[in-house]
C-alpha cells in the first residue's frame, strides 16, 4: 500500500505540494488525474524516492521510501521523460537493470521479446519516443515489481501496443497483486483499467474514491412529472428542457428510483454517466472550473 500523508514541497517560492495526502490500496490500479501544474509528477517523484519532502511522509508498506533500497527494488518507475543514455542498446540497459534490480527476471525478458519486437542492438537513442517507452515497459515488467509507477506513460504508443501492454500489466495485477499508480489525462482509458482515482489541483487532493463508489453514487435521471419532487433527494445539478427535467442526483440507482416513484412521474429514465461527467458533477459543487481540471 502506498501512503502519502500531508506532503508539502516548495521549489524556492513556489508551493508545488500543499498538504497532499493519498492512499493507493494494495493490488489496485490507481489513476492520478489533474491539470498540468497540479503536482502529479511532483508527488510521483516523492513516491519513487527522488525528492525529499519538506514535511509529511511517503510510505510504502509502512516503510519510508527515501533512500530505502528494499522498498525501491520492488518498485518500477516509468517517467514521462525517459532518460536516454548515450549509445547504449536495449541489451546494455537490460544488463544494467539486472545489476541494479535484484528481482530482474532475464527469462521473462526473453519471453517478452516477441511481444515488444524491438531491436536489442540498435542504439537506444535512435528509437522513436514511442519505441523508447515500449522498451522501458519491457524492462519494467521484467523486474516483477510489486509497485509500478507510470507518469503519463501511454501517450505516444499506438492503440495496439497500448492494449498489449495493459493486458500484460493487468495480468500481473490479477495474478500477483501488483499495485499500479498511473498519472494520465486520458479518462477513457483510465475508466477501463483503474479501480481507484484521485483528482489533484494546485498541489492538493480534491477527491479520492474508488471508481465503483464514484459511479454507483451518482445517477442521471430524465423526469417528467406534474408533482413536486420528493424530499430527501440530493440534487447535484438540474436543468429543464420543455417538460423534461434532467437531474443529477447523489445516491444509488435503486434508492433514487424508489424515491422518485413517490412523485408518480409520467416519465422516469435512469441513464448511466461517463467518468468525465461524474467528475464534473462531483467537483462542480466545489466551485472549480472542472473542465480544466479534468482535461
Amino acid at each position, binding site marked *: 500500500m502506498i501512503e502519502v500523508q500531508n506532503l508539502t514541497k516548495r521549489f524556492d517560492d513556489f508551493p508545488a505540494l500543499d498538504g497532499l495526502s493519498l492512499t493507493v490500496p494494495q493490488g489496485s490500479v490507481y489513476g492520478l488525474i489533474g491539470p498540468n501544474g497540479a503536482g502529479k509528477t511532483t508527488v510521483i517523484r516523492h513516491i519513487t524516492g527522488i525528492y525529499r519532502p519538506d514535511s509529511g511522509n511517503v510510505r510504502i508498506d509502512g516503510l519510508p521510501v527515501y533512500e530505502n533500497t528494499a522498498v525501491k527494488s520492488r518498485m518500477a518507475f516509468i517517467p514521462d521523460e525517459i532518460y536516454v543514455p548515450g549509445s547504449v542498446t536495449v541489451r546494455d540497459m537490460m544488463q544494467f537493470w539486472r545489476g541494479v534490480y535484484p528481482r530482474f527476471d532475464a527469462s521473462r525478458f526473453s519471453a517478452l521479446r516477441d511481444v515488444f519486437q524491438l531491436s536489442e542492438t540498435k542504439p537506444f537513442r535512435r528509437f522513436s519516443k514511442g519505441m523508447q517507452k515500449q522498451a522501458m515497459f519491457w524492462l519494467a515488467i521484467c523486474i516483477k515489481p510489486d509497485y509500478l509507477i507510470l507518469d503519463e506513460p501511454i501517450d505516444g504508443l499506438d492503440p495496439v501496443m497500448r492494449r498489449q501492454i495493459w493486458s500484460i500489466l493487468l*495480468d500481473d495485477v490479477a495474478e500477483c497483486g501488483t499495485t499500479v499508480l498511473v498519472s494520465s489525462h486520458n479518462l477513457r482509458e483510465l475508466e477501463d483499467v483503474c479501480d481507484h482515482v484521485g483528482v489533484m489541483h494546485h498541489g492538493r487532493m480534491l477527491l479520492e474514491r474508488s471508481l465503483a463508489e464514484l459511479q454507483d453514487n451518482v445517477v442521471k435521471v430524465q423526469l417528467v412529472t406534474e408533482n413536486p419532487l420528493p424530499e430527501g433527494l440530493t440534487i447535484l445539478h438540474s436543468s429543464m428542457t420543455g417538460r423534461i427535467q434532467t437531474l443529477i442526483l447523489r445516491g444509488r440507482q435503486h434508492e433514487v428510483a424508489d424515491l422518485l416513484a413517490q412523485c408518480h412521474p409520467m416519465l422516469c429514465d435512469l441513464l448511466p454517466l461517463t467518468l468525465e461527467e461524474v467528475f464534473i458533477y462531483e467537483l462542480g459543487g466545489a466551485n472549480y472550473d472542472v473542465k480544466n481540471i479534468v482535461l
Partner: protein
Amino acid sequence: MISINYRDSRPIYEQIQHELHRMILSGGLAAGSRLPSVRELAAELAINPNTIQRAYRELEAEGVILSIAGKGSFVAELPKPEKGADAPLARFRASVRELRTLGFSTRELHTFLDDLDKEDALPHD
C-alpha cells in the same frame, strides 16, 4: 469473445454482465461450461480485474453462474420454466383477452412487454 462498446455509456461491468448473460441465454455458453477466469478476461480485454470480478458477482447473485473456489466459474443450469407456471400463464391468458376487449392491439401488447423488459433491465430479443 466479448467486445466492449466504448460508446456505450453504461458502466463496463454492466456491459460485461449483459454480454455474458446474453450468451448464456442464447445458448452460446452451454450450461455447466467453464467461464474464462477473471485474470484471463482482464488480460484479454485490458480491463481492471476488479471490474470483471464485479460482473461475475452480479451474475452469481442473479443465479446465472456458479463460482467454485479453486476451480473457477461455471454456467448454472437454468430452471426449466415448466412446473409452477400453469397458474400464472392462465392468469396471463385471461388478462390478455381482457385487454383485447378494451381495445389494445397485439402490437401495443408487444410494446408493453418491451417496456417492461426495459424496466426490469432484461436483454431484448
